[in-house]
């Protein structure tokens, strides 16, 4: 303990997925008994880095990584999480991996149970040993004591409060005798504030006993409170590696979101004028798994491009999905001065709203059908377009020629790369699929268009084209656009106003020219007042 040579070193680690660089030349050291706070936006590369460290097979499957990971000065290259466990790395994931019907003790010593031989061993070997429950309990209690928390060793996991589950999971990791490095990925995300505090105390306890901890969290004040050193990842690069003392939440926030390149406003130099407020959302809640919206109030003016940002899981995606009736929702939404019904996709579409879903392949496309179908279908079903009357209107059949013409139009204007309008949607690349989704929404000629994560998973060139297309439609047809995106830069480049969602509520609405630190503070759940203060300072 207190030794100076690092326990764990990450040296020049780079990783790319199919040409997409997610980590670039990341290096840092970790000493025994040190707590390292690792922060970064979604997609900054935190998870990938931890996967490399933990030897997840997905890394090897996608071509491995460059650089070196050293433990006690010797290079290691794990091929599976088991190797990582043997080397003394323990990991606590965001989601619990506990068996609900087992007690605390059983979960802590799972698969490492203490055994007592019986006479059957003579015949059948070790597999016939029985559990040594008193010893298991002793070990579990030891681990709990080491953690310094109160935990009933006999309680069933299914009956525990969330905080205790988290402790059980950590206790399981430190029960391994070899564990020297503990990785905690968002351990406080599911905890209440008081529970989180207990956890932080426990982490400091562990660190005192010589265990090195990597602590990943979006709650920046926790990172500041507990970490000895802070590493900030941004776009796969470790932009900051600094001792935690003297660092403020605001500093971290601006390091997290700050880009070295200035944003290019797409709408630069343009006169932007807006009409009346025509979408008014009040007390909206949406029960979308993983993206719960709790209480959202906002209003969008006609002709505006309104951005909604925030970290993953905070509920930004739930807003359009809820208004469009795809997930159970409540509250009130008024559009054009009329009450829009919730939970009824058809009526909302008929009112002139359209939605480009973030789940392109799941909701956005008919993968097995032609582009013609994909683009014309919604317009046919909602507005009765692309139907050809037969027998004096008695019967209406699909107008294949009309559908083809429409598709060809969009293939030309949006530059969709395909072999023909009859090509199946699943055969296109991600960027072109996204354009098909946009074409589907444009074919409805909506007054209000929701686009959700329009540039997720597509390359840079396609991104620009998608954003330009949105802007063009807004300018030429006066289509109001509500754009939800995890990429702040994207929002700042195109939107007139940007709302940041945190914990299912709007944390604040900022102009795109606002300082990055303000966005960062709103995103990481620091108080809105603090953001204002930061803006003034």
């Amino acid at each position, binding site marked *: 303990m207190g030794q100076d040579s690092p326990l764990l070193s990450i040296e020049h680690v780079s990783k790319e997925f199919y040409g997409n660089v997610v980590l670039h030349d990341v290096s840092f050291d970790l000493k025994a008994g040190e707590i390292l706070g690792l922060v970064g936006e979604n997609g900054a590369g935190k998870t990938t880095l931890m996967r490399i460290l933990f030897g997840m097979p997905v890394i090897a499957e996608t071509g491995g990584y460059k650089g070196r990971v050293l433990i006690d000065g010797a290079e290691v290259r794990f091929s599976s999480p088991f190797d990582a466990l043997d080397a003394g790395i323990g990991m606590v994931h965001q989601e619990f991996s506990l068996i609900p019907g087992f007690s605390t003790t059983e979960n802590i010593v799972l698969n490492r149970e203490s055994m007592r031989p019986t006479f059957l061993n003579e015949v059948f070997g070790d597999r016939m040993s029985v559990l040594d429950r008193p010893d298991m309990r002793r070990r579990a209690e030891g681990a709990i004591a080491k953690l310094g928390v109160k935990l009933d060793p006999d309680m069933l996991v299914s009956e525990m409060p969330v905080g205790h589950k988290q402790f059980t999971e950590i206790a399981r990791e430190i029960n391994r005798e070899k564990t020297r490095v503990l990785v905690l990925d968002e351990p406080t995300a599911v905890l209440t504030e008081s529970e989180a505090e207990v956890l932080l105390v426990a982490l400091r306890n562990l660190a005192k006993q010589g265990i090195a901890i990597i602590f990943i969290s979006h709650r920046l004040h926790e990172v500041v409170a507990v970490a000895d050193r802070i590493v900030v990842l941004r776009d796969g690069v470790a932009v900051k590696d600094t001792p935690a003392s003297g660092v403020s939440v605001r500093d971290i926030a601006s390091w997290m979101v700050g880009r070295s390149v200035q944003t290019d406003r797409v709408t630069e130099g343009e006169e932007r004028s807006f009409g009346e407020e025509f979408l008014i959302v009040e007390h909206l809640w949406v029960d979308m798994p993983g993206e719960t919206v709790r209480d959202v109030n906002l209003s969008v003016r006609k002709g505006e491009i309104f951005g909604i940002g925030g970290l993953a899981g905070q509920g930004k995606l739930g807003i359009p999905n809820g208004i*469009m009736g*795809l997930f159970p929702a409540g509250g009130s939404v008024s559009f054009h001065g009329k009450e829009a019904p919730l939970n009824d996709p058809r*009526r909302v579409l008929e009112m002139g709203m359209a939605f480009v879903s973030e789940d392109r392949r799941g909701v956005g496309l008919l993968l097995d059908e032609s582009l013609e179908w994909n683009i014309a279908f919604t317009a046919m079903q909602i507005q009765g377009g692309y139907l050809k009357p037969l027998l004096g209107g008695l019967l209406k059949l*699909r107008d294949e020629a009309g559908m083809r013409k429409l598709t060809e139009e969009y293939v030309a204007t949006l530059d969709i790369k395909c072999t023909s309008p009859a090509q199946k949607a699943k055969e296109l690349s991600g960027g072109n699929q996204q354009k098909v989704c946009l074409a589907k929404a444009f074919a409805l000629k909506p007054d209000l268009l929701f686009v959700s994560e329009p540039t997720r998973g597509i390359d840079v060139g396609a991104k620009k084209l998608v954003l330009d297309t949105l802007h063009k439609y807004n300018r030429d047809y006066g289509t109001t656009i509500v754009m939800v995106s995890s990429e702040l830069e994207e929002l700042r480049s195109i939107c007139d106003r940007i709302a940041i969602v945190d914990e299912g509520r709007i944390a604040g609405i900022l102009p795109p020219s606002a300082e990055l630190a303000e966005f960062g503070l709103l995103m990481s759940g620091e108080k809105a007042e603090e953001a204002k203060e930061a803006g003034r300072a």
Partner: protein
Amino acid sequence: MRNLKQFITDFGWPRIIIFIFLVALFLAAPLVNVRLDSSLSDVINRFGQNAVFVLAMVPMIQSGCGLNFGLSIGIIAGLLGATISVQLGLTGFLGFFGALVIATPFAVLFGWLYGKLLNKVKGEEMTIAMYVGFAGVMFMCIMWLVLPYTAPTMIWGYAGKGLRTTITVEGFYRRVLNDFLAVRIGENFVFPTGEILFVAAAAFLLWVFMRTKTGTAITAVGSNPDYARASGISVDRMRTISVIISTILGAAGILVYQQSFGFIQLYTAPLSMPFAAVAAILIGGASVNKASMVNVIVGAFLFQGLLTMTPSVINSALQTDMSEVVRIIVSNGIIIYALTRKTKVAK
């Protein structure tokens, strides 16, 4: 060469193998003293007899409800129509179409209930459908005895009540479609024009329906229910409609079958009928979620051809009776093949 390869991939190896096998059976037939012209006549007749059942698979496959293993529900509706028509003493074309008209409301009602049930078990439709079919058939076993039919041609002679297991439609609507404009060539070959016309008309109507707004919506629901829902389609409603149409076609199918076969078969007879239809559409190249009219026609022809030719040729060649064994192996083998292929596609 490229074209040939493309053709083979489009048509699919299983179909080509079965087709070659079928041709081989036809070639071998004269060698074992099986007459070609009567065989061909049989194949065409059986194609017409069964094609409507195969057609009944299409709407439910397209709407994502999978293969209609519960086709027996439609068959029961058809049997109700048939027995009531006979009870009323309708004969000839009136008998056949009367039965169809009577059967339709039953089919709509049963299909609606059956569809409601399938909407509650999304993802498990095929398993549930099979049991619904079995249960329905067994329930009707009781009803056939209890329902107050009185026509002397239908009820048990010794008890004076309860329907017989097999009822002849001789004198009612036996062969009304088969003999309509039938073309006889030589001694042993008859082309059942009316039957084929009926099948063609049914196929055309379904083809048109699948091209309407509702039909398009049904296909979209089957292709991606989430997409359809996001486009304002009521997924459950479309699925129910597809089940109702499938059930009506099942009812029409059994009537076509009866007029050609000559008998109304009650009690447990409908139990295994869905399997032949399922096997046929799968041989025709349909998958569990995509089916076309071509699949129906090719499948019904190949499957019925196989079922007609294999027993007669092989039995004559081997001097044993294996017809039933061959039939079961072929139809169930094809079902297994197609269902395992489905999991591959899903991944």
